[in-house]
Each structure stands twice: as structure tokens, then as C-alpha cells.
């Protein structure tokens, strides 16, 4: 039997999380790939098993075999027709000429340009005399902007964790918690915060948050990583 694997080094684990979340390629790239493949699908049928189960494949020739047999038959007929026809033609035309067929294929080389942009996420401190929360006159931020800000903080925390800078990772998690306590990326934030706390040796705090995590997201895929961190 295979023994369970040792947990990965926390910095490596965090780096692999960053790689796992690699951004989706631009829609035009995906569209181009889909178009090419759909053309292939249209032009060729897949090899499908003969209906009736695995046993019937031994009795009846498979689709590939049939295709190969039909190709052989076509080849034989073509050869006979070609030989007879060629002999007749040669009588009339004399010596055969050599014909070179050149096929030009246009190849498009995709070029992807990525312009990295650092976006600072502002931390708004409450100012004395300012309207209480909920009474602000500013329009609420669009969901897309909120999510982007969340994502940046989570990425910053993940990268800091990958460097082994647990303080910085925890700080980004705290910022995220302050700005989006129930944000869409709360699950990731809590996972990162727990691992950062464990990295800082603050195990009781890490375990307490791990218990809360388990109650809130009992079927989370991140539970394994969290359990390893607080073990």
C-alpha cells in the first residue's frame, strides 16, 4: 500500500496555489482554439465502440478496421483504374510530365502580450465626523470592482505566504476581512490566514480559526491544507 504523502512546504504550497489560479487566457485565444477544434470535429468522426458491448468487437470488425479495409479496397481499384487509364493516356500524350504540386499553408502565430498592472487597494480609515457606515453618500462599488479588489488582496496574501512572509500574508488577510468580511473569496482568505498564523507559530489562534472554518465550510476542498497546517 502507498503511504500517505507528507505535506508540501508551506511556501511551495502557496506558490502552487498561485499557479493553480493562473488567469484564464483571453477570450479571443479560447475562441480561436474552439473554432479550430470544431472544424476538426466536423471533418472527422470519432472512433466509437460498436454498439452491443465489448464482446461484439471481436465478432464484428471495428470502425477503424472497416475504414482500413475500405481504404485498401479503394487503393486497389484506384491502382487498376490508374494503370489502365495511364497506359491509354500515354499512347496519346507521349512521355509523362513531372508535375509538382505546391501547397501553401498559412500559419498564424499567436502572440500574447501581458501588461502587468499593480493596483493599490485603498484602505479607508474612518474619519471623525464622517457619516456612519451605511449612510455614506458615495455610490456602492460595482460588484466587479469589489471582486477585483478582493482578488488582489488574496493574491498578495498568497504570494507573501509563498515567500514565507507570514506577517505580510496575515496583514493582507486582515485587510480583506476588514473590507469584505463576507466577500466571495472569504473561504480562500480564511485558509490563508490560518496557514499564516500557523507559520507564525500562533497555533491556538490558528486552530480556533480552523474550527470555525470547518463549521462554516464543512465540505471545502481547502480543509486538507488547513488540517496539515494546524496539525
Amino acid at each position, binding site marked *: 500500500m502507498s503511504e500517505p504523502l507528507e505535506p508540501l512546504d508551506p*511556501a*511551495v504550497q502557496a506558490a*502552487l496555489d498561485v*499557479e493553480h489560479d493562473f488567469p484564464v487566457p483571453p477570450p479571443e485565444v479560447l475562441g480561436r482554439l474552439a473554432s479550430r477544434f470544431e472544424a476538426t470535429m466536423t471533418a472527422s468522426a*470519432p472512433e466509437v465502440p460498436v454498439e452491443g458491448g465489448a464482446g461484439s468487437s471481436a465478432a464484428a470488425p471495428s470502425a477503424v478496421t472497416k475504414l482500413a479495409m475500405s481504404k485498401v479496397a479503394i487503393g486497389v481499384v484506384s491502382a487498376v483504374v490508374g494503370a489502365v487509364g495511364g497506359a491509354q493516356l500515354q499512347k496519346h500524350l507521349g512521355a509523362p510530365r513531372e508535375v509538382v504540386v505546391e501547397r501553401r499553408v498559412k500559419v498564424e502565430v499567436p502572440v500574447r502580450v501581458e501588461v502587468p498592472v499593480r493596483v493599490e487597494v485603498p484602505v479607508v480609515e474612518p474619519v471623525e465626523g464622517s457619516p456612519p457606515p451605511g449612510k455614506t453618500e458615495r455610490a456602492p462599488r460595482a460588484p466587479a470592482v469589489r471582486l477585483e479588489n478582493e482578488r488582489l488582496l488574496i493574491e*498578495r496574501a498568497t504570494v507573501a505566504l509563498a515567500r514565507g512572509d507570514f506577517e505580510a500574508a496575515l496583514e493582507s488577510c486582515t485587510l480583506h476581512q476588514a473590507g469584505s468580511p463576507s466577500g466571495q473569496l472569504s473561504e480562500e482568505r480564511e485558509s490563508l490566514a490560518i496557514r499564516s498564523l500557523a507559520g507564525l507559530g500562533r497555533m491556538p489562534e490558528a486552530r480556533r480559526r480552523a474550527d470555525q472554518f470547518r463549521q462554516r465550510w464543512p465540505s471545502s476542498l481547502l480543509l486538507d491544507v488547513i488540517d496539515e497546517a494546524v496539525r
Partner: protein
Amino acid sequence: MSARAQAFTSAYREHLGWMLRTVRRLGVVPTDQEDVAHDVFSTAWRKLDTWEPDRPMRPWLFGIAFRVVSNRRAARSGKEELVEAFDDRHGGLPRPDEVLEGEAVRKQVLQALETLPFEQRAMFIGHDIDRTPIPELARALDLPLNTAYSRLRLGRQRFQTAWDALSRGHTLSKEVST
């Protein structure tokens, strides 16, 4: 069109982006990634009878990607491609405009991946990056379970060594990467 083909055509689109990332992680140079991804899907289409619709599609596609890239490396002399890939994608320190730290981390992950033998690399990518369960991955790569574990363990060790070296600012030499 068979039910299996219908299921495939309605599901493959959600894996396009992941496939481009996968061939990148398997060491295909950027200019060839779309072509190789297309080859993988075309092969998958031809080999549709090997797909079990009640199982997840990704591990099956991953197994095909592994074989397509492996054959390609063998045909092109893997070493040349390795060096070419290394120079093209990762050469030297991060450029000044690579200010987003996530990019630098991803780059370092690719650099460390380059040091793994291809079979270990596939296990490492499939399990530690894609988070595919080992039995599922072993099945997709036609490996005995113990071999899959063994490759993953060895891959992890090599990756950790490379990661530590890169984190200390070392450059990986060709000796390290073979």
C-alpha cells in the same frame, strides 16, 4: 452523433483554458501551445471510445496531453526543447515590468518544474497543481498506484530542491535540470 460524442461536444469548451495552461506546464513553448492544445483535443476526439462519461473529463484529457507532449518531445529531441523553453520563457531575472508578484511566482514555478523528469513532472502537475486525486491520475496515465506515488514523491523532492535554490537567487544550471 452518439451520446458520448454529444456529451463531449457540450463539455469540452470549459477545459480549453485549462488545457492551454497544462501544455504550458508540461514545457511546451508559448508559440506552440495553441497547436499542441489543438492536437490534444483532436486526439481526444479520435479516441472518444476511451472516455468514460461517468468519470471526470480532465484526468482523461490530462493523460492524452501527457502522451501528445511526450511524443512531441521524443520526436524533437527533448533536450533542445528544454533549453529552448528555458531560454524563451524564463531566462534570467524577472524583467522590470514584471512587477506583479504573482507573475514572478508563476515564473519560478515553471523554472522549478523544468528540473523534473517528464514523468515526475506530469504527476506533480496533475496532483499538486491541478489537485487531481492520485488514483484518478494513475488511471489516466496508465500507471500502477505505487508507481504514481513514487513518481510524485520524487518529483516533490526535486521541485523543493529547485525551489529552494531559486529562492536563494541561484540560477538553475543544465546539470541540475537533467
